[in-house]
């Protein structure tokens, strides 16, 4: 797994996919069997006794039992899924105290990353195995910052600061993509996330880093 976010996404997604396939296949199979079994075979199939006829409102039929059973089954499955969802979302919403805070600026059409030392770049370099906290803003219209392989994203909206966090678990290059339509350049609003070995990262960061100490990111926050 390439990041903390994809690590927690994948099992939940798999759970949904397998349960979804299970339910879908079972229900559609029953559906097809019923259609096949009760298809009209001319005189071989008797006319049902309660056939609705013109001039008479059809009788009500149906037993609450089947409603209750199918509801109960669904509730069991959905509770499962809800539990999984809540566990994941709580994790996503509580960033551990981060070691690297980067401000992300979305604009038409590109990304700008501002490091704690005010160093600015158009690609995002982060160290492996450290918590990265991103403060996401937009300079113009709505964008959505997402790392394709990390299975996470967050809107970049003008006038608001949104936060996401992740821990990169593997070095390499990943794709940063805009997930909210933002005009003619939307499809090209891409850049790279480069995950480096911590030592290498420190080396790089100290070279771009001015002498002064780290200071917190200044986001354009809501008035």
């Amino acid at each position, binding site marked *: 797994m390439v990041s903390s976010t994809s690590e927690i*996404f994948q099992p*939940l*997604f798999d759970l*949904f996919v397998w349960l*979804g396939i299970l*339910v*879908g296949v079972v*229900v*559609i199979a029953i*559906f097809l069997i*019923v259609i096949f079994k*009760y*298809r*009209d075979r001319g005189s071989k199939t008797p006319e049902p006794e309660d*056939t*609705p*006829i*013109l*001039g*008479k*409102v*059809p*009788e*009500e*039929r*149906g*037993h609450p039992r*089947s*409603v209750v059973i*199918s*509801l109960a089954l*669904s*509730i069991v499955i959905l509770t499962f899924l*809800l539990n999984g*969802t*809540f566990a994941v*979302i709580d994790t*996503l919403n509580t960033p551990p105290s981060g070691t690297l805070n980067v401000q992300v600026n979305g604009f*038409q059409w590109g990304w700008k990353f501002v490091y704690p030392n005010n160093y600015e770049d158009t690609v995002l370099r982060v160290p492996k195995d450290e918590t990265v906290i991103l403060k996401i803003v937009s300079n*113009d*219209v*709505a964008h*959505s910052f997402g790392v394709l392989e990390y*299975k*996470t*994203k967050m809107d970049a*909206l*003008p*006038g*608001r600061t949104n936060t996401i966090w992740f821990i990169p678990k593997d070095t390499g290059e990943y794709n940063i*993509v805009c*997930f*909210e*339509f933002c*005009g*003619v350049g*939307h*499809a090209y609003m891409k850049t790279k996330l480069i995950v480096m070995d911590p030592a290498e990262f420190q080396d790089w960061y100290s070279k771009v880093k001015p002498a002064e100490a780290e200071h917190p990111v200044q986001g354009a926050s*809501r*008035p």
Partner: protein
Amino acid sequence: MSEEHHIPPSYSIKRWLFSTNHKDIGSLYIVTSLYFLFVGGALALLVRVQLTVPNNNFIASSAFNQAFTTHGLIMVLWFLSPFAFGFANWIVPLQIGARDLAFPRINALSYWLYLFSGILLLMSSAAGLPDGGWTLYAPLTTLRFTPNLGLSLAAGGLILFIVSITVSSVNFITTILKMRAPGMKLMQMPMFTWTILLTVFMMLYAFPSLLAGTIMLMGDRTLGTMYFGSPQGGSLLWDHLFWFFGHPEVYVVLFPAMGAIGDIIPTFTRRPLYGRKYIIMSFIIVALLSFGVWGHHMFVTGYDPLVAKIFTVTTIAISLPFDIIVIAMIESLVKGKVRLKTPMLFVLGSIALFIVGGITGVFLGSVALDYALRGTYFVVAHFHYVMVGGGVVALFGAFYYWYPKITGKMYDEGLGKAHFVLSVIGFTLLYFPMFMNYEMPRRVVTFTETQWAFTNYLSTIGGFVFGLAQILMLYNFYESSKTGAPAGSNPWNGFTLEWAVPSPPPQNDFDVTPRFSEDGTISLPGLGAFANGGTHTMSTAHAEHGIMESHLSQWPVALAGAAFTLILGILGVTLLPTASFIEGMLYLWILLTGFILGGLGLYGFAKEKFVSFEDEEAEGWPFKHVARVRMGVWVFLASEVILFGTFIGAYIFIRAGTLDWPAINTVFQIQHGAINTFILLTSSFTAVMALVYSKRESKAGVIGSLLLTIFLGLWFLYNKATEWQELFHEGHTFDSGVVMSTYYITTGAHGAHVIGGLAAMTILIGGALKGRHMGEHGSENIHNFGLYWHIVDIIWIFLFPLFYLI
């Protein structure tokens, strides 16, 4: 014109321009919406061609964006709902044994407004079609980022469209609640009528939110207000307004299709629907819950995590009633005699596709998964499975089902089955691969990733297969309308009342109104019961005599044309600052024409003697003793409340984010607001006086009180105008920030309602001068106007403290 009781023949242009008969209006809706289906489909194919292979250069990004945006707008708004309402127009009156809708001329007006709104949308292509996505996300859609006129034209079209939807909803609600055949209980209504009833309720209360949002957007684009260009409003405000409408809209396009399924299944399985009661209950629950799930479209906007959890729960909960519906529909087949004719094939296919769409919807309801899936092709696949699979495919089934009724001819069964098979194959090739592209961002003009190449390739092939299949349908219906075998009145052995009249039904549908008895037996007084197994149907000969209703009016199309011209004129006026003299005169002339046409139209509409079908014994539980127009006014006013509720909601949203809101009595002077409150309250009193006098048949009293009310209304507007002028002088103009934005747009919309009231009173006075509107019965119009006027006053009572006192 209305003295003519017989509709001109079908080759007459006059018929198609002026007919108010529900069947003609239904046909107009069906044909127009099919036209939009093919326009929207062509745009979708453009999109698909561009995405066939990676790094494709078939069309430019700007064209691509216009294509998918207009595709989405057309398919959801200008195709799907109007298509469903073509059938609703045709079938609902027949199913409930009414001879037409409650307000036939208003019905024609809805259609013409719809057509003109579509023309506005298409006209925008001259200036660049809208290109911000069908969701019109702000602030991309503000003038700063989308300066072209095309979006303004489309927004104007959207406003007309919403007006059309609103009046049409009022019409259907009144019809279904008040005009059922004597004795027909709500629970005895066929499923299609049930879902149409719930659909129009959802439309009536969801669309005002979009209307308010569009008005704000137009204000931003033309006057320079700051709803969406400011951080206090901005993206989030639009998201809330749009999706409060947008989610119910999903069910608006789905419900009529499911209702048709509910009538088609029993007909083709020869057994009553299983668990009908539970299905109806589930539909009602969905309709209510649909207003409480919109937040699932905003999971990654960074709003409060607790709110996100609540929306996750409501969204997942809404899948439960659907679970009941689908299971009940499957159980309905058990021990039946399932006849696999084309309508049934489409219906069964639609259920299967809807199951897939519903299951994947649960994925998107989970906030945790949404972090990954939001904005990807997974979403595109999901909503096409629901809207096209669940909605359109079933409506095609409904088309085959009711085609013999509408045309009197049988379609070609072989071609119908071929259409079904090709559609399902095309559909699956088109949309299933999109689930596998659950990483690929949507709304991108091209992509470089080779792992998405094969799936996209399949999608494009599927798109063409699906598109060609639809041409087969058109061909089948066109050919069969000329050469098809005569269908007879009840080709499917259907059990609902539309099958009791000849195909196509005579002008007045039912010669005698059917009657429902306690045990569910339906009879035709004078013609006996449908005794032997429902074979006794009405004959054309019977149905042709005793026609007394009007079916023609030239005013609906004139009024809709006026509205269209007015919108063009208003848009033109906003261009004045940069227009040349000639252009300027032209715009002003268009505006003036719109006003004159509108005035004439209203006058003609009000004056025309139009006899519509009214049955004293019609079943109207629980509103039996409420007059029909009164009922319509009530329902309409409820939607007005939502409209202003939305403006007030936007105000609260913006105010919560604005720290430097002006202190009391600095910008807005209390005395201005207080005087106007006093004036309006007094005018409510004089409106009541008019009613009292009219019941006492005092002509002078009625005219006097109405004149007094008009005077007070004018005084209110005069005060408002001076206040605006002062504010302008102090530099508080339209474009001076969010405070003034909310003030001008909210009180401006209210002022427009006051003007509407003045126009209504002028018409009432005209009638009163001729001695109308008097007595217990005649006072009805004055009473209805009074209700409107009181609501306008009550809204002001909310606005006054919001702007002046706190």
